[in-house]
């Protein structure tokens, strides 16, 4: 077994023989409460450091925006307004193994974890990308001005593939969060965890966009440009490799020549937006995308290939249902989109598979949304959001509430008054009437 390298709060090497003691230290509880003032003060400092670095790493700006004071206050209010008979306390020590270089995913989770009073131990791979390096630097700078109570709460470590090190750190945690492909998740979950700890895992997920044809057709050029801008904001960060990056476009309610005109003007608008941004992503990934697309269309007849640019390749006629064409499996990012067509909203759920996470939508009438959400949700979708919001982080992720997972709920049923206790022992027949009359909280 090898040791590890600690990057935060200070840089130091921990040799293998010291790992058990190191991990035991990590298990010790902190005395931070959810939304501790010292943590909020640190978040303000961090926002400044992130904004300072966002010219080189634009995705840091979104993170800074997310942790602005007003947003955190709203989050706090949401939790405190929860009527459940539960007092939320920190989970304890959280051990997180984020995905390769979709660094903001780990950042949001770490931030939530910190806000809720946990100590978070984050493992980053040996070769950190530039975005991660910038993030770690920003955190380090902000920790410089933070209270010692907060400094202890964030630990970033780096080590190669070593299940023994993972086991040592897992021993110290109350919650282990793993992101990755299904194989990675399987492998990491097999590393033992103490009986009192829980595993939370996010495997391979995928995303697509649903465009209602009538709504797109009704857009004027400015509106279409805006839709294209939102589509590009959703799909192009992280080279289209994030779980929530839309990799397919589903047209609803159009076909034939009308579809052809609509899709042409839509993709032309997307290409124009890419030109405007002058930077859709890496050419190398774009060439991978074209090669992947060519490989798919070589397998059967009936597909269309439109390599419009190195960073924009569209494949039409893809069979998304049951991932029959393997679209989700082989996707390399790089601005590659499958196109599918359905006659109406009722046909959309058929295209969804369990690994689909995010459905971005445009033009779905309000009255049809609840049914759509229910139908696609049952097939696998965990979030239905407007086009433009695919990458927006939320406490609700992959069908779970991170706020709940990152805390423990201490159950404290509300005590009965003596009168309630008396009536309650009488019979259930008067319980409803009594509680309604009294306006008292429900006994649980």
């Amino acid at each position, binding site marked *: 077994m090898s040791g590890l390298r600690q990057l935060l709060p200070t840089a130091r090497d921990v040799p293998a023989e010291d790992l058990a003691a190191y991990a035991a230290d990590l298990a010790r509880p902190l005395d931070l409460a959810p939304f501790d003032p010292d943590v909020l003060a640190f978040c303000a400092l961090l926002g400044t450091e992130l904004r300072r670095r966002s010219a080189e790493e634009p995705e840091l700006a979104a993170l800074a925006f997310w942790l602005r004071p007003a947003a955190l206050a709203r989050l706090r209010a949401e939790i405190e307004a929860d009527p459940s008979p539960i007092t939320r306390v920190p989970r304890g020590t959280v051990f997180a193994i984020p*995905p*390769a*270089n*979709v660094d903001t995913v780990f950042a949001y989770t770490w931030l939530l974890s910190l806000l809720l009073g946990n100590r978070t131990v984050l493992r980053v*791979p*040996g*070769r950190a*990308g*530039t975005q991660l390096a910038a993030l770690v630097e920003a955190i380090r700078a902000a920790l410089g001005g933070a209270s010692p109570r907060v400094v202890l709460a964030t630990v970033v470590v780096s080590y190669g593939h070593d299940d023994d090190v993972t086991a040592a750190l897992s021993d110290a945690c109350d919650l282990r969060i793993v*992101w*990755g*492909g*299904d*194989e*990675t998740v399987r492998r990491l979950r097999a590393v033992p965890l103490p009986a009192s700890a829980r595993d939370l895992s*996010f*495997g*391979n*997920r995928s995303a697509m966009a649903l465009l209602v044809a009538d709504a797109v057709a009704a857009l004027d050029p400015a509106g279409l440009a805006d839709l294209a801008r939102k589509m590009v904001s959703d799909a192009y960060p*992280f*080279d289209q*490799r*994030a*779980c929530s990056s839309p990799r397919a476009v589903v047209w609803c309610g159009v076909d034939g020549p009308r579809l052809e005109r609509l899709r042409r003007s839509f993709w032309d608008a997307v290409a124009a937006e*890419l*030109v405007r941004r002058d930077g*859709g992503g*890496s*050419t*190398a*990934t774009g*060439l*991978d995308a*074209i*090669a*992947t697309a*060519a*490989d798919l*269309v*070589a*397998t*059967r*007849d009936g*597909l*269309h*290939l*439109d*390599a419009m*640019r*190195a*960073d924009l390749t569209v*494949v039409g006629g893809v069979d998304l249902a049951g991932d029959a064409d393997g679209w989700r499996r082989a996707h390399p*990012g790089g601005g590659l989109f499958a196109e599918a067509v359905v006659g109406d909203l009722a046909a959309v759920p058929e295209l969804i598979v369990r690994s689909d996470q995010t459905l971005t939508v445009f033009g779905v009438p309000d009255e049809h949304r609840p049914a759509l959400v229910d139908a696609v949700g049952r097939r696998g979708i965990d979030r239905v959001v407007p086009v433009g919001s695919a990458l927006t982080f939320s406490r609700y992720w992959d069908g779970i509430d991170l706020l709940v997972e990152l805390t423990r709920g201490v159950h404290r049923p509300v005590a009965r008054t003596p009168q309630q206790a008396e009536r309650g022992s009488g019979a259930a027949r008067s319980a409803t009437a009594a509680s309604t009359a009294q306006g008292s909280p429900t006994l649980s």
Partner: protein
Amino acid sequence: MTRDDVGAAVAGTSVRVPDDLFALPVYDLPAAERATALLAVLNGLTDRHRDACVEYDRVLTASAVARSRPAETLAEVPWLPVGLFKRRLLSSVPPDEVLRVLTSSGTTGAARSRIVLDAPTAQRQAKALAAVMGTLLGPRRLPLLIVDAPSTARGASARTAGVLGMLPLGRRPVFALDEDLALRGDVVDEFLDAHRGQPFLVFGFTWLVWTRLAASGRDFSGGILVHGGGWKALADQAVDAATFADVLVGERGFAGARSYYGMVEQVGGVHLEDESGLLRTPAFADVLARHPRTLAPQPLGEPGLLQVFSGLPTSYPGHSLLTEDLGVVEEPGRFHVLGRIPRAEARGCSDVLAAAA
């Protein structure tokens, strides 16, 4: 052939199939006539591969490439991304006609290209190499020192293709490296003692030549060095073309050093450096630069993704390929290569990437 014959051959209907291209002068044909001749062959190959390789036909059909409309310019010739050959074996000949399957020398873990050769296509590759090298070496077969191991000649990689291609061009070829790729000093000394001062040929991949010969301390006077395989490995050690020449010509005494550009994915694409330092396209091949984002053809002098053409491959659809190399076409038929497009660090949740992390 007289010049008139050549003109007639080109302008008329006689350049149609790959082997016709060998009747043309390797370099001296005027650009317009070269283009006409090559285009005729390329269009023929597009149709031929559509008939023989169903996967290729599907890609072109999916890309709305009409059979009825042949390309009128090089830029209109449909292309395949070179990465497709890493994902799929594309063959235009039945299995019993396959002579050899070449593989690219990929980095560990990465998929390798697989290229199907039949006997005619392999022969054309040999003829192409002989034709191009002949312009440098003349008609004689020179003593040949190969900076590689004997086993390379028996493999199936790009280095194998290069070595096998050069063997027939030399006289009594000698392999300079042992199976561990270490310099066989005694063998090299014996070769040099026998041939020093008179013309002899040394061939090898650029990084092997640099790492094994540059610091060898030996005198290669009279030798002509031909090397290829790219500068990337040397770029990592901060060795550029100028440094390479300084050492190998200036210090090691080579009479001349010429690089060549080619790839295992394209039989016939043998582009040899000329005296001015630019790579020249032979009559049976050509290049085009495309904008790295829009993929539109770049004007001369503008860097872009290199698309390579060859009128020679009939066993697999490799006559028009978009590579992952950046280069500049300075004038028709003359270009230089800037290097591989940069590959950013892998991102995302997939297992393949996690394994690489």
